[in-house]
């Protein structure tokens, strides 16, 4: 089913903004409310908007199932890799080995209320990003699979 031109134009217009907002929620998960799961769900909402606005044949040329499957698997692998990475430096599994290290995301923060800095919190932003990518791919592929079982119009 293909929606009217108004709906398709609106979806085209909103899709990049929804993507950017979702990635913002993912990347600022350690500073503001939200995080990987929530931001990934927001991004998947943008994908669902495009799927609703266009017909299935058009959507599969824009949003590839293989890409979404790859996002899901790569996200989970990065997440587990961030957990195993702690073993490489001699810390326990899933410990926050990058916090206070001065390396990537390694800045310390003062105690109490403060505006915060993106370059803090150790492995938490990496795990947020990994989970966000995974939820993006996972929810998008669920919607794509459910859409693919709808019979074609006119047949």
């Amino acid at each position: 089913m293909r929606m009217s031109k108004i709906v398709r134009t609106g979806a085209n217009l909103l899709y990049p903004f929804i993507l950017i907002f979702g990635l913002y929620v993912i990347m600022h998960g350690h500073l503001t409310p939200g995080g990987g799961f929530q931001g990934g769900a927001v991004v998947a909402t943008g994908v669902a908007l495009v799927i609703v606005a266009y017909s299935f044949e058009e959507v599969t040329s824009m949003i590839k199932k293989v890409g979404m499957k790859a996002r899901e698997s790569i996200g989970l692998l990065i997440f587990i890799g961030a957990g195993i990475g702690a073993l490489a430096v001699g810390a326990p599994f899933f410990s926050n080995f990058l916090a206070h290290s001065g390396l990537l995301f390694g800045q310390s923060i003062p105690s109490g209320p403060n505006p915060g800095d993106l370059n803090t919190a150790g492995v938490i932003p990496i795990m947020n990003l990994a989970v966000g990518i995974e939820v993006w791919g996972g929810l998008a592929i669920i919607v794509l699979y459910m859409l693919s079982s709808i019979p074609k119009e006119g047949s």
Partner: protein
Amino acid sequence: MKRELSVVIFVVLAAGLCAIPAFLTFGEPAESGMDQYFIGNGQAQAAANNIVTSVVFDYRGFDTLGESVILFAAVIGVGLMFRSMRGEEEHEDE
């Protein structure tokens, strides 16, 4: 008979739901020691301003791993179910 029974069950459950606030006070959990630990030490230990995220990804990181794997398994299940419904029509990227 069945209709009256369902009405009675509904009334009893609704009354029980309305009676809960009379027995419990809002905002006073029985155990608050762990909350105070996270609020007091979360910023210093995890270096994250958002205590909720540092609980989810740092203190309880292993639980979040299970959550992610459950999502992965759910996607695999949905894929299996809807692929069998799709039948002979296969897609180009499969």
